């Protein structure tokens, strides 16, 4: 069966190189953390917060690139500064939380861009903005795997508290669950996930993997466990598909993955709409 052999070759060929193998592992890691944590981000309506952290950390990444220290460290420092800036801006009276966040994040992002466009800046700043999944090193993979494991463990352990606080904040308090502690935990996990994902997808696209698969999965199921499973699978399909696209069509890998993630969401939307038309909308009685 020469045709089958050709297909298999086409599928296997990209991953014969170590570079692509590492990229594959990286997108699989991202799919796992994006799919699981993403469900809590979407349910908790924290997408804007996640995006803000990702954008606000930009100066940290640029400074790390300039100083030649690991991006992970620069990113971590950048996220801390971003979180502090957002918290401080939120204390300015009569601005409002969203506006304060926008001001703080835009300022930081602008600062990062200013640094990035200076003549001393080495090449590769593009990678910070749009990601460089093909540039994933073994060290990146190890650090990423450790962070992802930590996030998954925390999500698993805190599952019922996250569920109770998300379902009904006041009711959770009466159950002995402190919603503020749950919020803080969730934001910390988001910061960790952004830190991992920024390597592959870059500052501007990282939110795609944290939000799009979960948002799509939410349209397709009404239970949390299948929602997470669907989101992880969607993330993996988009990730692998993006790598193929990048290999065969010579387009940027990060952008391809982000594009496929969004396409996945649109397909889910379409599927949900068709099935609700077919079933006819049934409202609960009484």
């Amino acid at each position, binding site marked *: 069966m020469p045709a089958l052999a050709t297909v298999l070759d086409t599928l296997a060929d990209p991953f014969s190189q170590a570079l692509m193998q590492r990229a594959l592992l990286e997108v699989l890691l991202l799919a796992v953390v994006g799919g699981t944590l993403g469900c809590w981000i979407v349910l908790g309506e924290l997408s804007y917060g996640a995006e803000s952290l990702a954008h606000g950390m930009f100066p940290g990444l640029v400074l790390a690139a300039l100083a030649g220290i690991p991006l992970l460290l620069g990113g971590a420092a950048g996220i801390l500064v971003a979180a502090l800036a957002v918290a401080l801006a939120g204390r300015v009276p009569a601005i409002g939380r969203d506006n304060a966040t926008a001001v703080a994040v835009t300022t930081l992002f602008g600062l990062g861009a200013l640094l990035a466009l200076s003549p001393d800046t080495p090449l590769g700043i593009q990678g910070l903005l749009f990601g460089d999944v093909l540039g994933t090193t073994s060290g990146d993979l190890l650090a990423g795997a450790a962070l992802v494991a930590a996030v998954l463990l925390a999500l698993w352990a805190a599952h019922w508290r996250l569920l109770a606080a998300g379902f*009904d904040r006041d009711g959770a308090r009466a159950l002995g669950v402190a919603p503020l502690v749950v919020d803080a935990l969730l934001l910390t996990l988001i910061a960790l996930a952004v830190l991992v994902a920024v390597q592959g997808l870059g500052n501007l696209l990282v939110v795609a993997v944290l939000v799009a698969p979960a948002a799509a999965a939410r349209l397709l199921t009404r239970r949390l466990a299948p929602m997470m499973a669907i989101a992880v699978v969607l993330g993996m399909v988009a990730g692998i598909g993006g790598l193929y696209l990048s290999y065969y069509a010579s387009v940027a890998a990060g952008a391809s993955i982000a594009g496929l993630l969004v396409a996945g969401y649109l397909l889910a939307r379409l599927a949900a709409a068709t099935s609700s038309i077919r079933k006819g909308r049934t409202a609960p009685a009484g």
Partner: protein
Amino acid sequence: MSSLVAARDVAVGYGSAPVLRDVTFTANPGERIAVLGPNGGGKTTLFRALLQELRPSQGTLTTTGRCASVPQTERSRLDFPVSALDVALMGTIPGRAWWRRPTRTDRAAARDALKRVDLADRAERTYGELSGGQRQRVLIARALVQNAQVLLLDEPFTGLDTTSAALLEELLRELAQEGRAVMIATHDLEQARRWDRVLCVNGRQIAFGVPAETLTHDVLAQTYGAAIVTLPGEDPAAPHHAILPPHHHHHDDVPPH
């Protein structure tokens, strides 16, 4: 018969000034107690004190039985991907270390509680797809899972049709009969008259006692201010009081977070 809740001269609030003061009452096993008062009158604050979320700034509040709250269904998220069983299982959180998952015993307790509120066959249904009355009963099941001897219900009849309301009222009667105290925040005077005690609050305790003696025009006027009208009844000796419904539903005694 020892009381499950005993409050003496309790004052409670969020800052320096109490939202509610002069609270003195007891709740005994088997009693249904209507908590009457305007929005912002301190009903929610009283419940939060009973749940030990707020500490009284004055007086003594003794709860010998475990209190559990049954919030309004509209305060929970209907779009949340949880089943009725999941919600009932949330009632097992207080007794468990935070990293532990629900055990087989926990699941059995949650299923029993759903059975107790006649929802055994709805355990796997999505919470948001249940009717208002069913959702309220799921939240009661969640309180039962906590082995609560004192149930605190926040306007549980709001938005229910008559059938669901009758079902709920019967359930509350049974739960009290089994030896619990059931405290129900409500605006419905007719309903309150059918229960064992009424507690009227409006920034302070106005009155506490059996409905027939307590629900006088004077007490109601103090409880609700101007929002009370007297309806001409057939028996001029027993006029009917009615409360003008609040324009909208909110809890203005809860500080913004």
